[in-house]
């Protein structure tokens, strides 16, 4: 009898805790969303797989000696992986549309209200029994509203590592849901006439402007928000490598092989934080709910800001553009284009939406810097 028990003990079956099984199902759900639904598969596939591996009993993936432990320790705890991703994203970003129409930065600013309102909302949730978010927790959760994965992971790793798994999953899931979350809000806050507004064509931007822009962004960040310089700095480095045109082989590597390698590792490491005791909590429900709220508010304030700007502008501004201010590049810009085309089949807003779209990336990196400076 004893022998049989020994055998039994060497399989996982005997050692499964219910929480591990649930987390594996969560990992399986993420894989399903990534593969079958095409939701941000580059991140959700490795995250989901990492979640499955991390919850295998006896396998020790997340303990010292396990591969996920080392990857997390080297890449996330140091903050290096999200920063490298941000560098690669910078090398993929074209600021042309924003430089041609810099007022679009107001839309990128307005959409960040999603972040700060959610911060307030997260603290307000403490009134509900079972929730106990600190200001650091609330800040890390709120950044989901920035619709920017690496920014969310970077901030969470600094302010609330325990919540990192849930925050990253929420951030990437909602980014994938942008085409579902945003259109109703956009339509509710605009009239069909407003949605039909055509924007005038953007001017050509010179190479020199594109080279100097990341340097100007970095310069202002250095002066006024040093806490944001890790994120903004690496982003600007990537963008400068691209726009300078003198280090194409570095720029290409940063936006291809390097970002791919880091993405695999980052996803696995984030997945390794999806353990039952950290994820299967009432807080996770709160985080998922708050994330949806954050996206919605950001979309709304972006649209309202565009309407306000349109009033004070000599040239009309299509208020749909405001929705692109949450970033989620380039998904939100595509959504703007699609909703615009529904109202007017000849109105192509994609290029115009790229302005507030990349402004939203800067906006949420700035917001992250503010939170690091004031709460971190």
């Amino acid at each position, binding site marked *: 009898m004893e022998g049989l028990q020994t055998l039994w003990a060497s399989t996982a079956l005997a050692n499964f805790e219910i929480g591990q099984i649930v987390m594996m199902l969560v990992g399986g759900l993420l894989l399903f969303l990534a593969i079958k639904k095409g939701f941000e598969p580059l991140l959700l596939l490795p995250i989901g797989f990492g979640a499955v591996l991390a919850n295998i009993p006896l396998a020790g993936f997340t303990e010292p000696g396990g591969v996920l432990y080392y990857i997390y320790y080297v890449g996330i705890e140091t903050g290096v992986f999200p920063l490298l991703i941000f560098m690669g994203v910078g090398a993929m970003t074209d600021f042309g549309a924003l430089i041609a129409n*810099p007022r679009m930065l*107001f839309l990128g*600013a307005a959409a960040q209200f999603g972040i700060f309102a959610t911060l307030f909302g997260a603290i307000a949730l403490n009134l509900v029994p079972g929730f106990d978010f600190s200001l650091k927790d609330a800040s890390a959760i709120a950044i989901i509203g920035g619709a920017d994965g690496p920014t969310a992971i970077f901030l969470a790793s600094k302010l609330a590592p325990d919540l990192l798994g849930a925050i990253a999953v929420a951030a990437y899931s909602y980014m994938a849901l942008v085409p579902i979350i945003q259109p109703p809000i956009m339509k509710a806050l605009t009239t069909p006439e407003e949605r039909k507004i055509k924007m005038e064509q953007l001017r050509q931007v010179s*190479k020199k402007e594109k080279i100097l822009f990341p340097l100007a962004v970095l310069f202002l960040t250095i002066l006024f928000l040093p806490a944001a310089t890790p994120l903004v700095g690496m982003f600007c480095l990537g963008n400068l490598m691209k726009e300078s045109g003198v280090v194409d082989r570095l720029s290409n590597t940063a936006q291809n092989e390097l970002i791919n390698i880091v993405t695999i590792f980052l996803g696995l490491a984030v997945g390794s934080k999806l353990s039952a005791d950290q994820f299967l909590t009432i807080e996770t429900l709160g985080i998922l709910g708050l994330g949806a709220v954050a996206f919605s508010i950001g979309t709304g304030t972006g649209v309202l800001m565009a309407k306000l700007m349109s009033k004070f502008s000599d040239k009309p501004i299509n208020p749909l553009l405001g929705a692109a201010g949450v970033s989620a590049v380039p998904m939100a810009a595509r959504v703007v284009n699609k909703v615009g085309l529904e109202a007017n089949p000849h109105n192509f807003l994609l290029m115009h939406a790229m302005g507030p779209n990349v402004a939203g990336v800067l906006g949420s990196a700035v917001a992250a810097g503010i939170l690091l400076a004031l709460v971190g």
Partner: protein
Amino acid sequence: MMSVSELLYEAAILMVVGMVVVFIFLTLLIFATKLLSKFAGQEEAPVNNPVQPSNLNAPAPVIAAISAAIHQYKQNNK
């Protein structure tokens, strides 16, 4: 350990300060970008200083504004 009402108050202040600073910062960036385009916008333009310090003409009011925002927050945070 702060009470929930204290936390709420702090969060409200953070919300206001955060949005104010985001707006000030990105407004500054608008000015910087416009200045940039003025000097470097023409492909034929003569070579300007590559690190165009576009905001040096008005640092005082800017700092004052950001300072005021953060000040407000810190005040309320004591």
